[in-house]
Structure formats: C-alpha cells, structure tokens
C-alpha cells in the first residue's frame, strides 16, 4: 500500500506524513506525475489562500494529474483548503476557479454567523442522511470532536455529496463530502487527536479494498 501526499509548497505536509506513519504503509510526499499515478491513494492537503494554491497546482500541472488519478477509481482525500479546491469556484478575494471535480462553490461564513471568524475550534459532526459505517467516518459518532480552522465553507450543489455536517454559530455547513472516490474533509484529521487518526486509517482501508 502506497499513499502519496501531494506536495505543492502549501501547507504543513509533514504533519500529515507523521499522522499516516501510525499505519503500516509506504508514504511519499511528491508532485511527480508517475509517482502519484502509481500510488494506491492520494492525500490532497492545503492551508492558506485559494488563488495562490490554484496557481501552485497549475505550475506543476497537478489539475491534470489529479484528473487522471481520479479516473483510475482510486481514492483521493482533500483536507481543509484541499477539500475546498475540489469544488468549482471560491469567493475568496473575488471569484477564483477551483478544480471543479465536484459541483459546488466555496463561500465565506454568512454574515448572520453567531460566532467569531475564523472558526477555530474543536467541533462535532452530524450525519447527513447517510450511514457512516464502512466509509470514511466508520466508527465516528456525533459525540466526537475534530479540529477546524477556516473562514470559508464548502457548498456542494448536490446534497447527496454531503457525508457530514457541522454546526458553528447557528450555521450548518458541509464538514465532509464524498462523490464516488473523491473525499474531502474541512477539519484537520492529522490534528484531531486519536479520532482524527481513525479517519485517516478508514481512508487507508477504503484504498486497500
């Protein structure tokens, strides 16, 4: 089992590497096309600004490589900004184009949000209409907390792509999304203590099926 963490000089990839190291697998940090396509699963990290992230991806031809990888049916997990980049557009600093791998947009927490921004907090998930068993959130309950830090939220067009919601300041937003073999989580599993490591090992299980 080999997992590739996409390296495009944005975000703390070492933390994800460390968190995955709890599992008995090979992990590579790379932006090389052949190594990526040769991997069994892909982690797509990211923190910071949307536009800069897209330009770093484009510099390395990563949008095309990601597309090719997804066609193979092997799983991809976008984390935080990595999740947001999977959608079509973002309203961060004007409108930016995303990868468009899942239909939908990224918007700022609405003005009515009754809480400070950024949303920096541990927070729990609630189910959409789906059963979490056997998937990315296998073994997770609505009591478990994950670490979030973000100001923008994902709005997939198709509610069927929402695997879990989270509630902050009376705003219910998409915390985990899935479309086929494409997954995204807004929280940081690599920084969410033991319960976050569980999500990563669930992802590895999906990849080994």
């Amino acid at each position: 089992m080999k997992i590739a963490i996409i390296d495009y000089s944005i975000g703390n990839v070492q933390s994800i590497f460390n968190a995955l190291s709890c599992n008995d697998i090979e992990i590579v940090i790379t932006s090389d096309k052949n190594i990526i396509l040769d991997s069994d699963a892909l982690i797509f990290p990211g923190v910071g600004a949307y536009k800069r992230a897209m330009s770093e991806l484009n510099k390395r031809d990563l949008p095309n490589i990601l597309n090719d990888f997804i066609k193979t049916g092997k799983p991809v997990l976008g984390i935080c900004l990595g999740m947001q980049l999977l959608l079509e557009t973002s309203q961060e600093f004007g409108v930016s184009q995303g990868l468009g791998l899942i239909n939908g947009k990224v918007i700022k927490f609405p003005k009515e949000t009754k809480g400070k921004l950024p949303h920096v907090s541990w927070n729990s998930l609630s189910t959409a209409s789906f059963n979490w068993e056997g998937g990315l959130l296998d073994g997770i309950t609505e009591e478990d907390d994950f670490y979030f830090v973000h100001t923008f939220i994902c709005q997939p067009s198709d509610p069927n792509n929402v695997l879990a919601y989270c509630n902050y300041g009376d705003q219910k937003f998409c915390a985990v999304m899935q479309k086929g073999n494409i997954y995204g989580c807004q929280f940081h599993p690599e920084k969410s203590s033991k319960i976050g490591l569980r999500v990563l090992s669930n992802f590895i299980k999906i990849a080994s099926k």
Partner: protein
Amino acid sequence: MRKFRLIGRIDINNENVVKGKCLEGLRKIGNPEEFASKYYQSGIDELIFMDAVASLYDRNSLIKILKETCKKVFIPITIGGGIRNLDDIQEALNAGADKVAINSQGLRDIKFIKDAVRSYGSQAIIGSVVAREFRYSWEAFLDNAKHRSGVDAIDWAKSLEDAGVGEIMVTSIDRDGRMKGFDCKLIKTITESTKIPIIASGGAGNASDISSMIDKTNCDAVAISSLLHYKHTSIEKLKDSLSKEGIQIRR
C-alpha cells in the same frame, strides 16, 4: 457549536521546560517532549511552545524538540518567541508547527505581520500581546517582557487584528506564574475591542479561576502552564470541572 480550548503552554529555554513568575526567575522543571506527550495523552486541545529567552543562539534545539514532538502528538502546535522573519516561520511550519506566535518583531515592524499573513494565511499567525498593568492602562512589552514598547496593549491588539492575524494570545505579565487568577479586565477589554478569537494566558490557579474568567471575558481559549507543570490538577479533572460549570469543551 464553539468549544472552549485548553492549551498547554510550555516555555522552553535551551532543551528544558522552564517556568517563573511574571516571566522572570525561570526555573528548569523538565523535558519538553515528555511534557508535550503527557498533556496530549491526557486530552489537552492544543500546545504552545514558547522560546522563553527568544534565544539568538540556540534556535536549533527548539526546532528539534518540535520535530520530535510532532511525530507523536497529533493536535495543533504553536511556536513562539524570537520569530523575526519569514524564514523563521517557514522553518517552524516545516518542522511541524501549525501556527507561530509573533510579538516583538511585529511591534518593531507591523509590515512583518502583514507579510506573514499574506504568505502563510491568517490561520497560521497568532498575534501575541504581552502586557503589564499601569494605573489606568496596560502597556505592551517586548523581548519576553524585558522591554517596554511605549505602545498601549489594547491598541496593539487592534493593530494585530487589522494586520490580519487569526487569533490573539494575551499574556498578563503581572499574573504569569502566580496562580492567583487572571487579569480579567485586560482580557475583557481586548475581547470587546476585537472580533477574532482570544487566548488568555497568565494566572490560572484552579478550574474556577478559568470558568469565572470565561464568564467575565467571553474569551475563546486559555493557555495554562504552572497549573499543569506542578501537577496541581490533571487535564481530565480540569475538563470535568469546566464541564460541570456548563462550559462546552472537547471530551
């Protein structure tokens, strides 16, 4: 729902955990990696490593401690003390830190904070306010509370927010290490003057100090050190007490 965060603050000098009172008279009390692992295993929500002497000489040992800690501690980690340029930030983030706390260099040059936010995002930059109370106001100090800045601490907090930091940590020099309660007026004034999350530091002596401070100030997180370092309580007990007081925390 917002959950209040308990942050373990570990001040470091060379390779040792140190703690004093009012940020002075630092005593060596243990090994940073051991403290960090223990707090992580007991359920702390985040950790902050502060370079207590902002050492010009021995930055490498802090980076080494950070790298080792990140191999076994899977919660957000902040590093602060002596961050002077973008390379320092890059080095800290590469070593596994999620955020850096900046005070002195920001007071000397606010553009540095703006550049840091632009390069690494708000979520990676914590503005640090280290304040001492005077009769009618608080003054911001720099170089780990050694030098006066001449800047009003509340104004400094507002400038940090304007420069784009994601959070502000407020340390009361007067209350640090004394375990006799927080400077709630200082924390409340900053919480009410800004819109971003505020971390209160300096003064936690027991669970009710923390719960009454939250009640009075509406801050978002607390950084604790002596209370844990000297084993006055455990993180589990602290969380039990705060829960009983009706404070939402991660269990």
